[in-house]
């Protein structure tokens, strides 16, 4: 309407000609524009009612005109009501919504396209915290570090807020108009010249929609671009079994596990379930308990290797040789070529595997070649493990596609495709260097991009449509084992984002859809009750994939090693554990979350081994030039003990400058060195440059300096001396002039099992989300001003090239005799009646004496105003704050509170119900997130409490107990299960 009003009758209308036309008869006309048949009017109608374009009568009669006028009048009235923005109290309060009381909804978050169940806490309609869904098989109640940031990315102020046409703001109606033209064109041409580029996805609805599109447009091409795809396992299964299958593992049944460069604890959609299962079988409390044994051969240091009982770092191109060696050894042959590892190691491994039989498990890394996967299949089959510890299932992400990004670019260059609709992916950042994706995409007639951010692809696209965040969407998704679950929105789309289902519906000509019905239609088999139950539980019952029985052909069906172990440096590409391919680069929590092993934040580095660094004469931060396949990048070197020699690990996810947070981060873009979709490149060269750049890390010292910080023993050592944690350690002094304080109510305490901790950082991320911990940015992190209340210390012990790696989560110890309390001049840190060491922010004047006197250095100081208190300035980012936790201002100290807000909530509930707080009722954020249940929390005064049972384990000890601080947080010493025949160097004594 505005178009007509603004343009008026004066523009482009020849009044004289109109008079002439109207002379002829009693034609009805709506406006001067219409009778003139101007383009403006035509565009207006098409944009407002794309579905009507076809039906718009060329010469309306009187009856039609009256109908349209009536409709437009009522629609005009409706349009006026659609944007009520004023905030008023509930006139009629929804039954379940009590202000101040959070509600929880089950939904599913996507991790590289696979679903992990989540329960999201919502305060007055505002999602603030992600927890795991105990009923979902991929979550088991746990979350990882990345899932925690879902609420942060939801409220990210940098999100794309409106459709863009050629980079200029446009209306969604305009977009629909253009799409209706596209639909007409495709309908006419069967989709000729069109292609769809989709992201990694397991959504059944999406798959069905794509199938429907294929039917509708038979010539439409479907391409999938997942830069983190690991197709080797499917390739191997296709060659071996003739069908595409993936492996799902049962670590709870495995006694001996051999990982061939598989980081199953840190990567992959099943990692939370796998970590839980693995650690459930390694939980030792008494000398009679049993433990599984984990051997790991890896080409880049991972947390799986850190958790392994035997870890070998091997050059990436040599993994296949080890796999071949294993194959021969299992067949009982003498290894002909001789694998690049010690004979004794392989013999011990094979003996163990054979002894374990069907409870053995060989895992090939997803990034490894089809050959390695084939050997893993064969080994598992030979050991009888197929069907027990490993099951082969239909891949949950199975989707018939016409090719990947490379094929698409080729088709564009060949002129076969001129229109591309990109759903979610960002090919212009993640395309390998060899592909000139920019050139190909620039030559398109129409490029439509659908995504959360105005990213590189959005800038090039003719049309960009903001995507709905996963917490705003209706969708469905499958987990690593095929379990289907629903994605339900926690909040209406903040910026009118559209789900990918809506976009696909538009492409199939359905312009007026609602996101729910698209998903609901797909699950029509569920009646309303079942649908509601699925929504509530978070997973579709009995939807996991059924194992497929297979037989492995004897000669590996002719699969051969792919990589040639040539000379030169091997490059091992990895995805950044938090930012993945860079799509989460604008999440400040993730940028600032230390990487598990390197503790690097706000950037990445080229990881090399100490020996390689020595040979190249480089030190940390020194820039090295890495060249491979005709491309080269500069990256700061970072020396990682236990990294294989003559290889370099490069991580994806950095080097992006799109978004205000991402622009702050440093690091290189490893995609510029990638030839295709490979994870390993050989024959690279490294040339040190002259200059150095900063690499920001949160932990500068890696050795324990001979102090009994992480106390550890082998399982045999534990059996001989269950009290190994007390060995050679001064006893903690207990004398005191004063009687102990009596805790008449609860006495909160925590136990952390160092054997179970895999260093995944989920607890740190969860703590940040729960407690409104401010990210501080790279400059402040570099200066040691980071704010994480909980940190995970990582220590190395033993030889530089093959060290043992230990993780130790360090929250506030809540010391009974807290050194911080006596030195505070203003009583800002005090003990509570239930034994918490509380920090009173209002009272703190910032002398920082408490931190100086804290032997654990767990206190964090607000050196700057990290949070904005001005409502207008703060923007949408403040929406993520937990309303039950104070936001701290500049100049005050803060620290772990044992999640006192959660304790209070449960205490209030218990008092209302006139009962004691039950054991296990209070769950801290770190404890809730932990995939391996390494953290136990509870009331020390209850004899039956789980935390009391944990603390009564013989390996329970307090950190720095000789200082007589009497910490409430204690640790269970780390117990590993090495093979007695393979005493690792430096492992002769238990520390």
């Amino acid at each position, binding site marked *: 309407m505005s178009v007509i009003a603004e343009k008026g009758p004066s523009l482009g209308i020849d009044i004289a000609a109109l008079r002439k036309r109207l002379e002829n008869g009693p034609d009805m006309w709506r406006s001067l524009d219409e009778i003139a048949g101007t383009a403006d009017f035509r565009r207006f109608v098409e944009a407002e009612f794309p579905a009507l374009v076809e039906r718009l009568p060329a010469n309306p009669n009187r009856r039609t005109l009256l109908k349209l006028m009536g409709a437009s009048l009522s629609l005009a009235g409706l349009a006026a009501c659609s944007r009520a923005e004023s905030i008023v109290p509930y006139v009629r309060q929804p039954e379940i919504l009590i202000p101040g009381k959070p509600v929880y909804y089950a939904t599913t978050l996507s991790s590289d396209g696979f679903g992990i169940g989540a329960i999201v806490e919502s305060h007055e309609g505002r999602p603030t915290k992600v927890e795991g869904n105990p009923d979902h098989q991929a979550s088991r109640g746990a979350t990882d570090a990345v899932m925690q940031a879902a609420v942060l990315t939801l409220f990210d102020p940098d999100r794309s807020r409106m459709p863009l046409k050629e980079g200029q703001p446009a209306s969604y109606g305009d977009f629909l108009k253009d799409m209706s033209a596209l639909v007409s064109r495709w309908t006419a041409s069967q989709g000729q010249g069109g292609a769809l580029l989709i992201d990694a996805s397991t959504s059944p609805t999406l798959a069905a929609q794509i199938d429907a599109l294929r039917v509708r447009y038979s010539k439409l091409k479907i391409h999938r671009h997942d830069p983190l795809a690991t197709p080797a396992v499917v390739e191997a299964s296709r060659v071996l079994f003739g069908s595409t299958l993936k492996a799902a593992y049962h670590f709870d049944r495995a006694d001996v596990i051999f990982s061939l460069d598989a980081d199953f604890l840190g990567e992959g959609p099943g990692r939370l379930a796998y970590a839980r299962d693995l650690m459930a079988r390694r939980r030792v409390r008494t000398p009679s308990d049993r433990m599984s044994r984990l051997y790991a051969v890896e080409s880049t240091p991972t947390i799986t290797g850190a958790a392994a009982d035997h870890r070998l770092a091997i050059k990436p191109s040599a993994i296949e040789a080890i796999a071949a060696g294993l194959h021969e050894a299992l067949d009982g042959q003498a290894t002909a070529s001789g694998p690049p590892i010690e004979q004794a190691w392989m013999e011990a491994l094979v003996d163990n595997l054979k002894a374990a039989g069907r409870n053995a498990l060989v895992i090939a890394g997803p990034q490894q070649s089809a050959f390695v996967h084939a050997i893993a299949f064969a080994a598992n089959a030979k050991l009888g493990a197929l069907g027990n510890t490993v099951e082969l299932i239909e891949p949950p992400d199975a989707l018939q596609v016409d090719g990947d990004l490379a094929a698409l670019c080729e088709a564009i260059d060949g002129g076969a495709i001129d229109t591309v609709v990109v759903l979610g992916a960002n090919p212009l950042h993640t395309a390998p260097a060899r592909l000139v994706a920019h050139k190909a995409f620039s030559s398109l007639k129409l490029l439509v991009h659908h995504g959360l951010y105005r990213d590189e692809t959005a800038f090039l696209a003719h049309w960009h449509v903001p995507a709905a965040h996963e917490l705003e969407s209706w969708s469905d998704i499958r987990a690593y084992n095929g379990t289907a679950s629903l994605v339900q929105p926690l909040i209406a789309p903040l910026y009118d984002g559209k789900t990918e289902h809506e976009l696909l519906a538009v492409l199939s000509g359905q312009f007026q859809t609602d996101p729910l019905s698209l998903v609901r239609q797909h699950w029509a088999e569920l009646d309303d009750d079942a649908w509601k139950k699925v929504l509530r539980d978070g997973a579709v019952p009995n939807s996991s994939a059924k194992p497929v029985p297979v037989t492995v052909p004897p000669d590996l069906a002719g699969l051969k090693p792919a990589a040639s172990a040539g000379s030169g440096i091997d490059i091992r590409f990895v995805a950044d554990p938090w930012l993945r391919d860079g799509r989460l680069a604008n999440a400040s929590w993730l940028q600032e979350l230390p990487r598990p092993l390197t503790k690097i934040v706000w950037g990445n580095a080229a990881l090399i081994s100490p020996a390689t660094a020595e040979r190249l004469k480089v030190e940390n931060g020194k820039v090295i030039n890495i060249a491979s396949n005709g491309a080269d990048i500069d990256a700061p070197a970072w020396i990682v003990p236990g990294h294989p020699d003559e290889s370099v690990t490069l991580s994806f996810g950095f080097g992006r400058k799109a978004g205000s947070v991402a622009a702050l981060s440093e690091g290189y873009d490893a995609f510029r060195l990638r030839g295709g979709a490979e994870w390993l490149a050989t024959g690279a060269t490294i040339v040190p440059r002259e200059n150095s750049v900063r690499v920001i890390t949160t*932990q500068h010292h890696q050795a324990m*300096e001979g102090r009994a910080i992480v106390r550890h023993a082998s399982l045999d050592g534990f059996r001989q001396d269950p009290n190994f944690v007390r060995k050679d350690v001064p006893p903690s002094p207990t004398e005191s002039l004063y009687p102990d304080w009596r805790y008449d109510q609860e006495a909160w305490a925590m136990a952390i099992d160092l054997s179970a901790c895999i260093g995944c950082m989920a607890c740190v991320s969860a703590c940040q989300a729960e407690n409104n911990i401010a990210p501080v940015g790279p400059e402040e992190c570099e200066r*040691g001003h980071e704010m994480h209340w909980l940190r995970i*210390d990582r*220590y190395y012990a033993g030889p530089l090239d093959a060290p043992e790696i230990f993780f130790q989560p360090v929250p506030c110890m809540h010391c009974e005799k807290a050194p911080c309390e006596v030195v505070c001049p203003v009583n800002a840190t005090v003990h509570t009646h239930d034994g918490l060491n509380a920090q009173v922010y209002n009272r703190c004047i910032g002398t920082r004496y408490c*931190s100086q006197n804290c*032997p654990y250095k767990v*206190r964090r100081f607000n050196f700057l105003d990290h949070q904005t208190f001005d409502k207008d300035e703060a923007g949408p980012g403040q929406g993520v704050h937990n309303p039950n936790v104070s936001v701290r201002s*500049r*100049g005050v100290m803060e620290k772990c509170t044992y999640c006192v807000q959660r304790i209070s909530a449960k205490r209030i509930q218990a008092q209302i119900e006139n009962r004691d707080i039950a054991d296990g009722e209070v769950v801290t954020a770190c404890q809730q997130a932990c995939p391996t249940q390494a953290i136990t929390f509870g009331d020390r005064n209850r004899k039956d409490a789980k935390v009391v049972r944990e603390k009564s384990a013989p390996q329970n000890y307090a950190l720095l107990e000789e200082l007589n601080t009497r910490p409430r947080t204690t640790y269970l010493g780390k117990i590993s299960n090495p093979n007695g025949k393979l005493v690792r160097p430096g492992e002769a004594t238990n520390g």
Partner: protein
Amino acid sequence: MAEARANNPAVMRGRHDFPEISGRIGSIVLDGRLPRHFWTAFFLCFLLVLLLLYSITYLIAVGVAAYGIDIPVAWGTMISNFVWWIGIGHAGTLISAVLLLLRQPWRASINRFAEAMTLFAVAMAGLFPILHLGRPWFFYWLLPLPNVHMHWPQWRSPLVWDFAAIATYATVSLLFWYMGLLPDLAVLRDRARSRPAQLFYGILGLGWRGSAYHWSRYQVVYFLLAALATPLVVSVHSIVSLDFTFAITPGYHSTIFPPYFVAGALLSGFAMVLTIAIPLRWAFSVEDLITVRHMENAAKLMIAAGMVVAYGYVSEAFFAWYSGEPYERAMMAQRALGPYAPLFWTMLGLNCGVLQLLWFKGIRRNMPLLFAIAVAINIGMWIERYVIVVTGPSRDYLPSAWGEQSLTWLDFGILFGSIGTFFALVFLFIRILPAITIFEVEELAEEQGKLK
């Protein structure tokens, strides 16, 4: 006799009479015709005052992140500045109170500016605990003020003791200094020729007429205040040292600290006395009143205090080893060999190495050299305080938390700003009040038989 005089220079040279002494000292103030280089130097100091004001404004606007502090080393230059300035103040109290009680005649001509130095040093020192705070505007929460927010100091914290100790010290120093000024203010009142000056000094002079009653009361009060101030020489820096020893941090937790801090305070205090007195006596041509004897005595006290400090260094290292505590030992080794090693060895070189030059009489009587040594010791003592503050927490119990802090422009801006402000105050003091005690010098002249 001649030989003895050569070996031990007199506390006063030449012959004087009362009008000459009071006229010479008084004219600096009353005539106001100060040399051009006085005002040039004052202008330079004033620029540093502006720097201090700018730095403080910046600090309050931005936050303490502008310092180089971090976690684990959450204390930085503000604490070391504080300890350093408090230490500098000590020499003034020692000269004026302790030497008065010990009837040391040579104190007479230097006690006034030494006391002023104490006062200004304490004023500077008092700034730093406030500028150190994360929320400096709430510094008064350290005071036991009855209030409605229900907060009260936490008396176990050494910072509260500190606050009380400094407040006491500042009060007693001010009273003592002012009491000593009374007869001189009266002299200035009497010699002033302009009405405003007569009024100004008249009011400050509190009606002093120099009667025998006045002198008798004066003696009682002055000696009483001296007796009160004397224990403060020991107590203030001991309490300051408790800020460190009370903590369990390695490098802080040490019983040697109280005496070692007091000795350090005297060392730096006398170094500052020399730093001021040597240019002062040259610029105002009062070498006959403030003689080489004064300078040499101060140098002797410096070496005495300095040897106690050196003993402190040794015993600190020894007890770190003897304790058998791995944390203390590692901290000590890291202090000497770790990231702060250059500072540590500079500190040793200046405070123990350069100090040894003072054993030689020739050096003690060579004013330019003595001045250079005094400045070096001042620098060395600042570094000592900084090393104590930062090395402990940077290498404490958990190696994962080890880290160093940096030094930013603000750290130096406030340090040099405070030095400039201190000297600006000294300049103002010289311009407004008699920098040498008129009546005591006259008394001295009479006692030494140096009257014309």
